[in-house]
């Protein structure tokens, strides 16, 4: 992992810059505000972990980056800039150029992410052919190369197989291979290990880490599992109820969480080295996204809550070390 000098000396143009992103879903029950004013950026070669529970908006946010949100969802505010160009406003041709080539994405469920009727090789080569105009033979060779890169044995044979002939872990490797086909600069991984067995999880994460180092990729790793983040990420962003509540380096987050929610998440992760008599959880449940509260969404579940929390939403404030947290009583959870 690279040390984070990036936070104290912000470079001129970050690779990916998300500012004040709002995404709403128009449903029968009302307007679901899935993403509410999220801002952050990713630099070249860095790994950002995005952590949050179900409904925190992390997946929606990830999919928005690649323009994959369709009705009833809609981007209702903010911008996403890739190397300075907007992916939201007048983004037709930009997205077409960038998607799959400069930014690539892998998803949660390897079982359904591949078209069952085509060989793995075809599905990898079509990415190359689309973006680089490679011919069939070149694309095929590249596919074999990629399968090897992601650690699949016998790539020349595997390339002709169909998805159903492969295990879940292997399919996820194929998806990673597909994503890397055109040497992207950013890999967005949306819960890549959630649907896999624990042992396979570890392998896939290791693979992502290796690839990241070897290829100098930037990675955005979305997960609900803090353990996944610990081994792999430079920085961590914590999302709750559609908002970004904490953003810091991994070390800072684990050693000294600023936001009570982050602290709660850490506390509720069962550990192997401590014997606990009961599992700790954060009481209560996230607020309804259709009618989100005016103040801090974590108020009802927060043991540090005061009246101010209910009345007004704390913005994401930047502290001296470059850390950000959205809490009226930030840093008090461990010291206060």
């Amino acid at each position, binding site marked *: 992992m690279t040390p984070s000098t990036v936070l104290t000396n912000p470079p001129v143009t970050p690779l990916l810059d998300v500012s004040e992103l709002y995404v709403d*879903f*128009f449903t*029968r029950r009302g307007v*679901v505000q899935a993403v509410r004013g999220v801002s952050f950026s990713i630099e070249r070669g860095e790994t950002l972990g995005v952590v949050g529970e179900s409904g925190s908006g992390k997946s929606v946010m990830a999919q928005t980056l690649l323009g994959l949100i369709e009705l009833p969802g*809609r981007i*209702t505010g903010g911008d996403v800039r890739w190397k300075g160009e907007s992916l939201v406003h007048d983004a037709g041709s930009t997205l077409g150029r960038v998607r799959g080539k400069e930014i690539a994405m892998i998803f949660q469920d390897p079982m359904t992410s591949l078209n069952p009727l085509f060989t793995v090789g075809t599905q990898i080569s079509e990415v190359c052919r689309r973006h680089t105009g490679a011919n069939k033979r070149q694309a095929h060779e590249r596919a074999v190369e990629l399968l090897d890169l992601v650690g699949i044995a016998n790539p020349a044979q595997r390339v002709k197989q169909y998805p159903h002939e492969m295990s879940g872990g292997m399919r996820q490797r194929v998806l990673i291979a597909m994503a890397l086909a055109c040497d992207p600069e950013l890999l967005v991984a949306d819960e890549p290990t959630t649907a896999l067995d624990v042992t396979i999880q570890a392998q896939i994460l290791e693979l992502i880490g290796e690839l990241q180092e070897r290829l100098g990729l930037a990675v955005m790793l979305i997960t609900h599992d803090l353990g996944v983040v610990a081994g792999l990420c430079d920085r961590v962003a914590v999302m709750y109820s559609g908002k970004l509540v904490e953003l810091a380096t991994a070390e800072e987050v684990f050693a000294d969480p600023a936001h009570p929610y982050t602290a709660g998440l850490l506390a509720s992760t069962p550990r192997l080295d401590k014997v606990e008599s009961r599992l700790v959880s954060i009481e209560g449940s996230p607020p309804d996204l259709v009618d989100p509260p005016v103040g801090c969404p974590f108020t009802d579940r927060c043991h540090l809550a005061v009246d101010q929390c209910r009345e007004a939403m704390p913005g994401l404030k930047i502290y001296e070390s470059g850390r950000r947290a959205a809490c009226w009583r930030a840093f008090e959870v461990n010291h206060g």
Partner: protein
Amino acid sequence: MSDEYTAQHADEEHATDDEAAIQGRPYEISAARRGGLFGELVRDKLGFASALFLTLLALAALFAPLLAPDDPNRGNLSRSMASPVWNGGSWSNPMGADWQGYDVLSRLLYGARTSLFIGLLVVALAGTFGIIVGVISGYKGGRVDRWLMGWVDVQVSFPGLLLAMLLVALVGGTVWTVAIILAVNGWMVYARMTRGVVLSVRERPFVEAAEMVGSSPLRVITKHVLPNLVTPLATLAVLEFARIILAEAALSFLGLGIQYPGVTWGLDIARAGDHELFGNQWLIIYPGLLLSLTVLAVNLLSSWLRVMLDPQEREKRYAASVTDKAGGM
């Protein structure tokens, strides 16, 4: 059902709605939106209109003896080809008479009677038999199930129309014989569906629990299987109803369905088709149009029913109307 259960269920439904909206079927919902408010309303209006039409038709059929100007089988050659009222004819033949002097309106009304009655009768007969077979097959399982479903598979592959034609030719064409023949040809789909429901219900833990506690099969069936059967059965029965009406019409058209003195639209289309193709084509159109409208109404009603009963479909329709109001970006 306790309040707790209902409340919990409501939460689940909401959760599914949101989740479905966010992860589930974005394309379809965007699809519905492009149809817009029109799409949503039209379905409702059509469903309502169909129900209305069918109710009126049923009433007309029921009261045919009172409403019909004349006996549908009384031909009066002196009135041959009488004009309808709007063409200067008399009220004794409001829609005119055909070349044999039969009153058109009377034949239409009594035809409605026949079609609707046969539809109901066949659905009742085929449905009852099919459900019983399905329940036995699904519940007993094993060899009984294999043999019953084997029989279903074989009979499903029979050429239904040909066999029906043959049977009618042998047995004669009255309302009851045609109904029984159509039922014999059409019970299989109910059996398969019922068996499916039984099997899926049996998988559920509370049924296993009930059986362990010692509830009799009959009790399990009535308490758990039958309620789950209602929705799919309703949709199926309505669709079958439409299919039966068409099937009877086809048989009668060929002369191998309901025959004189029975009155049916199919028969009239055949008669008029033979005789008046180059003459007064309206005699072909009236019964045909009525037949088509009836079947159309039944089909629209069934799809309206389906939308009403399925939460995801309702979600789509709502998203369509709301996103329009929310405006674009």
